[in-house]
């Protein structure tokens, strides 16, 4: 960010914080975020207090399915009010003229999110059992948020049937990505075996290892709310527990972090209904299909020529591994259906 934009940001923040003496002592791009850019800000208030904030703004080419910064800000406020452990949302700026794109600012929270480190860390969040329970409690608080909500009107009406809506959305994604018959195979199975709709809740829709900040004492923050929406709460369990999001620590079914039973226990402890195992299994298979279509969309950003990137170019090469597991899971589920018939 050049000097002119940094000064423009300082002026805007001083006004938003009602603190004319506010200064930005340091500003550095943080790692991670294929869709958004995150910047760490070291801010000095007019009275001399030093604070650390995080600024989130859009990358040049964002996925069409992600929320705007002001929508993400509204989601963070709703989650914060519901007791979800999130970074406190501070300000949102919809004026692209200030730094070149809309942005939001939240309080910095210390912790580790890097997935490959998190899954190898036995002391995570007070131990694996405690960490999985903590994730369950957070999900219960998120799922307490139910439609209709005037502050979340931008989420639209909840889908009449979240499972079938998911199938339709993925079919559209595959139409855009080009022929991928193994993903079609998985999706066709999901459509044929979709469970009936249940009462919708707010779903984070990207609640997984890598998007949760940890310290050795506990869960520090649930990050990245840009895909949140109304849906079947089991979708969040499926995404978190899917084999593809365990980062190699397959035996720890709750995101490679801890045991699934502890996750569910934490959920119930915080007021959630006992998760339906069959429904979660459906969403775990769905998670593989969804991650595959996201990976294809990321590859398309590189292929478009507008955003050449080695990281984006490599992402679609995750798809064959996902397909391998989809084929095996579909075969196992079909065999189970046949035995039950």
């Amino acid at each position, binding site marked *: 960010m050049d000097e002119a934009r940094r000064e423009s940001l300082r002026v805007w923040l001083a006004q938003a914080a009602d603190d004319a003496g506010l200064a930005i002592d340091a500003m550095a791009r943080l790692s991670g975020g294929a869709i958004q850019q995150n910047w760490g800000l070291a801010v000095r208030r007019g009275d001399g207090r030093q604070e650390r904030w995080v600024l989130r703004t859009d990358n040049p080419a964002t996925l069409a399915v992600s929320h705007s910064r002001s929508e993400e800000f509204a989601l963070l406020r709703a989650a914060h009010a519901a007791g979800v452990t999130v970074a406190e949302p501070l300000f949102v700026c919809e004026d692209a003229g200030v730094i070149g794109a809309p942005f939001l600012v939240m309080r910095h929270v210390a912790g580790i999110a890097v997935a490959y480190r998190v899954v190898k860390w036995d002391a995570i969040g007070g131990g694996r059992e405690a960490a999985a329970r903590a994730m369950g409690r957070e999900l219960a608080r998120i799922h307490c948020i139910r439609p209709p909500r005037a502050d979340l009107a931008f989420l639209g009406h909840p889908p009449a049937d979240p499972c079938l809506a998911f199938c339709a959305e993925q079919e559209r994604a595959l139409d855009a990505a080009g*022929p991928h018959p193994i993903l079609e195979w998985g999706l066709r199975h999901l459509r044929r075996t979709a469970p009936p709709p249940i009462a919708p809740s707010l779903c984070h829709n990207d609640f997984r290892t890598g998007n949760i900040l940890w310290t050795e004492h506990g869960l520090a923050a649930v990050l990245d709310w840009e895909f949140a929406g109304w849906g079947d709460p089991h979708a969040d369990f499926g995404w978190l527990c899917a084999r593809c999001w365990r980062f190699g620590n397959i035996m720890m079914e709750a995101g490679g972090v801890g045991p699934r039973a502890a996750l569910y226990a934490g959920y119930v402890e915080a007021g959630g209904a006992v998760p339906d195992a069959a429904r979660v299994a459906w969403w775990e298979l769905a998670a593989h299909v969804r991650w595959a279509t996201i990976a294809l969309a990321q590859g398309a950003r590189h292929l478009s020529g507008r955003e050449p990137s080695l990281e984006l170019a490599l992402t679609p090469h995750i798809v*064959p591994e996902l397909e391998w597991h989809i*084929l095996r899971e579909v075969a196992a589920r079909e065999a189970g259906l046949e035995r039950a018939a």
Partner: protein
Amino acid sequence: MSGVLERPDAADLLAIARTTVLEEILPVLPETHRLAARMVANALGIAQRMIAVDPSRLAVLDARAAALAQSAQDPWAGLCALIRSGRADPGTECHAAVAGLLADLAQLRCETSAPKTLAGG
């Protein structure tokens, strides 16, 4: 020289480039650039395996897809349409043939993009 193009060929160049990145460049890079170097090595490895695929394997898979989709024009799009329409669901005549083709397709795609998967990783 062997034929029109000079040797070492593409496969050989990719292999030695990958070894150089991993063994000579990566160890002396600062932490901030190691991920990028690993991605370069990964990309070279995938490219190496892609150009090593015997074209006859691709042709056989294309032909099987065309036969099932009954479309030589765009066999894979045709196969996708067949699957989506339910005409390859369990209990249909072509279900086992489609499942067999997809298993072979998955095998080849993993061999190039994700060989560790086939080793159970």
